[in-house]
């Protein structure tokens, strides 16, 4: 036995400590393996999609219209349709969402009524996309008699993405320190003056980030537009930027991918892959933009 007071042996590792440290390093390796096993296969899958898409990918593919019963050609009508749906739904959802978030964060007191609003927002975020589709069909297509149209589909998408905007805007608003608001109230500014002069200018980038995320979510959704306004095929001239009326149906990228992948016979092999890659890239591009904006915002904070 060693002398317990000997300063050298006092800090050597006991067996217990050695075992403890071994568990520590094993656990670290285990957890990092978990992360790697999640990310690597995904990157591989995405690379696989790209590899198969390559024969079709070109500028021509983007601006060309589908040909031969959609088994060849490009994706222009679908691309423009998605653009229409996203922008119109954005124009509806963004103001309502931002105002609703302002209400919840700046005006609402902590009472039962506002707890119900909060619950409604959470619930709205959790409603499955196919239920939104049923709602859009029942409410906009039939009850409001908009028919199968861009406007029905956009309204459905807008309601579906509303909670995304509300949640991210609230987060942005909540990040403005309370002391700023109190300072404004103390000099006799009204709530709205405070929001207008201090809260909004200091959270606008965060709000924009949320709105951009809405764009990417709306662009990828299929189920809600499938039964409200998206159509398998619509004849459109090549490169036409304004091919649709608001009361018409349109093609959409996500819907087009579903169609060419499952419904159309004898499709050129690389076509669905290329469609998937275009959709994926558009969504990831928009998201990356949002992330870049957020990073920029964090580095340019004024306080």
């Amino acid at each position, binding site marked *: 036995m060693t002398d317990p007071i000997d300063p050298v042996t006092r800090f050597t590792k006991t067996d217990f400590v050695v075992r403890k440290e071994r*568990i520590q390093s094993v656990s670290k390796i285990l*957890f990092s393996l978990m992360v790697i096993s999640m990310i690597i296969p995904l990157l591989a899958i995405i690379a696989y999609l790209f590899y198969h898409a390559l024969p079709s990918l070109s500028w021509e593919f983007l601006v060309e219209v589908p040909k031969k019963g959609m088994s060849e050609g490009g994706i222009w009508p679908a691309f423009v349709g998605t653009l229409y749906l996203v922008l119109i739904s954005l124009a509806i959802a963004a103001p309502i969402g931002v105002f*609703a978030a302002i209400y919840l964060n700046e005006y609402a007191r902590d009472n039962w009524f506002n707890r119900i609003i909060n619950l409604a927002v959470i*619930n709205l975020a959790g409603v499955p996309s196919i239920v939104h*589709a*049923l709602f859009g069909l029942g409410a906009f297509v*039939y009850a409001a008699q908009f028919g199968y149209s861009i406007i029905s589909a956009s309204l459905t998408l807008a309601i579906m993405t509303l909670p995304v905007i509300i949640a991210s805007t609230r987060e942005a608003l909540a990040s403005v320190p309370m002391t700023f608001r109190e300072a404004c109230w103390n000099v006799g500014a009204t709530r709205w003056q405070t929001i207008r002069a201090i809260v909004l200018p200091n959270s606008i980038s965060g709000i924009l980030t949320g709105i951009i995320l809405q764009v990417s979510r709306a662009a990828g959704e299929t189920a809600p537009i499938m039964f409200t306004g998206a159509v398998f095929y619509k004849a459109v001239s090549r490169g036409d930027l304004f091919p649709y009326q608001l009361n018409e149906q349109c093609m959409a990228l996500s819907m087009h991918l579903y169609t060419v992948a499952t419904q159309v016979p004898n499709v050129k092999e690389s076509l669905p892959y290329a469609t*998937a890659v275009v959709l994926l890239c558009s969504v990831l591009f928009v998201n990356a933009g949002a992330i870049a904006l957020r990073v920029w915002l964090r580095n340019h904070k004024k306080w």
Partner: protein
Amino acid sequence: MNDTADSTLKNTLPQRQFLSIAMENLLELIIRLSGISAIIFVLAIFFFVFREALPIFFSDHFDLAKFLFNTQWYPTSEVNVRYGTFALTFGSISVTFLAMIIAVPFGLGSAIFISEFCGPKMKESLKIIIELLAAIPSVVWGFIGLTVMSRIIVSLTGAPVGVNLLNGGLILALMSVPIIVSISEDALKAVPDSYREAALALGATKWQIIYRVLLPSAKNGLLAAVLLGIGRAVGETMAVLMATGHAVQIPHGPLDSVRTLTANIAAELGEASAGSDHYHVLFLTGILLFIITFAVNLTADLVIRGIRRK
């Protein structure tokens, strides 16, 4: 007394213009209305879906008990129409269950790694990757299931078709991992650093801190993360529609094809003519889904709220 100074103080500032006050009141009204809109939309969803479902209760072929517990789904049969959704419900449950078996350990493990083991740079980039993963549209996931995953499954297991329960489970797992990771990471972040420091001061290793300090104190947040993951998996439509195959049956193993409640609506709504029993019963399935996800999300919210109150 300095009364003259007093009155000048009072009068140098003008009163606000009537117009600007009126504008402000109008804006506040709009803001309040938007706040209430969330409630209106949720009620509207329930109302309109239920309105389309209602006529089915007056149909001769319909029985609520059979709707819930019968496995026979023959909505278009000429002779004997049967609307039993149990096989579909079971399909939803089995796919979700399989997805969670994979996603929960991986999600929690990744969250622990991100929050406890890596440096700030690494953490930032991993979180960005997770965020991008969460952004991949469900139809792209479905396409991956249909092409890549099904080929892998066929070549590994020798199953006749690659689109089946296992495929759907794997795809759903990949889809729900990001949401589980980001919410559990939040929950772990919410554990005060003082707990970690106190444990470190007592000579605990990282692993001991995780096992004995973090997991117990963050367990509600982690539970909420799992619940929200389940909510997402149950409600997912396009990915399971494309990846699980199209057989309405109770699966006997992971290589059997199944169909879920969501995929069933997506697959059949286009064929059901408006106003028919088939059409109404699909809306009723929507109500069933609405109630299931409502219950799951409500529970998750109560769990999260419980943490905040503490």
